[in-house]
């Protein structure tokens, strides 16, 4: 198993690593038992993500995926960010090894969890948005059996 240059670059030089003081919204997914936790902080102005920062406990591809994810959402509207899939994150990294695809899933979910927080708190939740956030129903109660690391 070997990582692409892009993954290694984002792992060695992570973009937007850190936390945002007084973030507009924040989302944490994963579980230390599974070996991955991602925390995504967003600063949102006029429905546009003006800043994003991550902290990740996890393997190289988890760190790279969160780094890449922040790059992909900064400057996007929240609804655009909501449409970013784990595949898009993985592709932007020039691919991930099969056993590591769940890292890109975590990145997608950490964004969504933060956006869920945002929409809910701002009273902006719509049925459409809710539908795109449906997975969180499971995720909120996640345990080792249901967490993404058991997915592949």
């Amino acid at each position, binding site marked *: *198993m070997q990582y692409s240059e892009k993954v*290694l670059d984002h*792992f*060695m030089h*992570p973009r937007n*690593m850190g*936390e945002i003081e007084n973030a507009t919204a924040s989302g*944490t997914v994963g579980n*230390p*038992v*599974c*070996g*991955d*936790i*991602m*925390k995504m902080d967003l600063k949102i102005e006029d429905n546009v993500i003006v800043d994003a920062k991550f*902290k*990740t*406990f*996890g*393997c*190289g591809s*988890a*760190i790279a995926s969160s780094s890449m994810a922040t790059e992909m959402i900064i400057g996007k509207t929240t609804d655009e960010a909501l449409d970013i899939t784990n595949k898009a994150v993985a592709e932007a990294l020039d691919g991930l090894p099969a*056993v590591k695809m*769940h890292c890109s899933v975590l990145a997608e979910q950490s964004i969504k969890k933060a956006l869920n927080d945002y929409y809910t708190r701002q009273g902006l939740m719509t049925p459409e948005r809710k539908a795109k956030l449906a997975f969180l129903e499971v995720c909120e109660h996640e345990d080792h059996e249901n967490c993404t*690391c058991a997915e592949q």
Partner: protein
Amino acid sequence: MSITFEERLRESMSLPRVYFDHAATTQPRPEVIEIVAKALQDTYGNPSSFYEEGHRAVRLLEESRAEIAAGLKVLPEEVFFTSCGTESDNWAIKGTAYARQGKGRHLITTTIEHHAVLHSMEALEKQGFEVTYLDVDYTGLLDPEKVRAAIRPDTILVSVMMANNEIGTILPIREIGAICREKGVLFHSDAVQALGAIPVHPRDLNCDMMSFSGHKLYAPKGIGLMYKRKGLRIDRLIDGGAQERRQRGGTENAAFAAGFAKALQMSVADMEHESVRQAALRDRLIRGVIERIPHAKLNGHPTRRLPNNANFSFEFIEGESILLLLDSLGYACSSGSACTSASLDPSHVLLGIGMPAEIAHGSLRVTLGIDSTEEQVDRFLLDLPLIVERLRDMSPLYSDFKRGKLHPLIPEKGGTDIRIEGQYNLD
């Protein structure tokens, strides 16, 4: 410390790489490569052939066997060449099970064996055999009396490794073997990690069978050994021609056999000196790591461990990312056994010694070898703290800990004999 990771990254470009993963595999000694290359060229005959070229090959093979037998203090006819340690483990376990199933279908092993043993056992379980997996204590030791208690009238084999490949703990196999002998149960030990590092004499250790692998002691990958006590009959794993006293088919790899013999002979000759030298380096490494890195602990037994093995857990961070950063600074290390690196599960060995999964994910194994130096260890002690710090800075668990939201499982000052209790209570 004023030096930064980025600075070390730049500096490391001009530094030689440091190979600290001798438990995964070793570079064959130059003397071994020379013997192998020469044998491939000159001694290419089939050892079963009935002419000069064949006789030359059989001589090389049998001289190698005799040399190895001398190193193990056993008879040449008790030494069988295989293709790897894994094959030896499979052969010993499945061969015994199939040959003795008339007597019983129960086997005993531990939870911290190599996958070659564990997966052989699982294969047997699918075929209706029953296996008892004994728990070890938090240092990796197994109380021999637990074996006695587990032996039943239908027990046909006990398999307990001599030294663990991840945490380096040396298990009390002589005592376990004595109990097996007393109870009339066959005893096999996977000594792949032990051979070449500490004295291994199957008879003294009360073993009926032992598995070995060349590439852990500076011989090539692709040759293994099985010690099988004279007169002991088990089923073949690989049926075929009359090779290896009809016990293992396949044209013999005399070149690697000669390489194995040379490597073993050199390891035995070096052992007294090297085990002391490597143990001193290892202890320098362990002391340095525990002193310089907070919330770090040594895994395995504090003293009863292979002279070359150090295995650590670092709280709040994950193992693979440590390895990647170490690799970038020029170090080859591992987080557990190499053959499971594609897996996402935490090491079954660390779980087996009772470590909670959240800590088991953050382990690092450093295994030294004949080419390891104090300079390498000191360089490592400079770099590892930077790496751990860098990853902790990225870790949301570490933020939580800093904010007092998470109670650490490893105390700040760490140690070499810490038993972790409990697990995270995340809100």
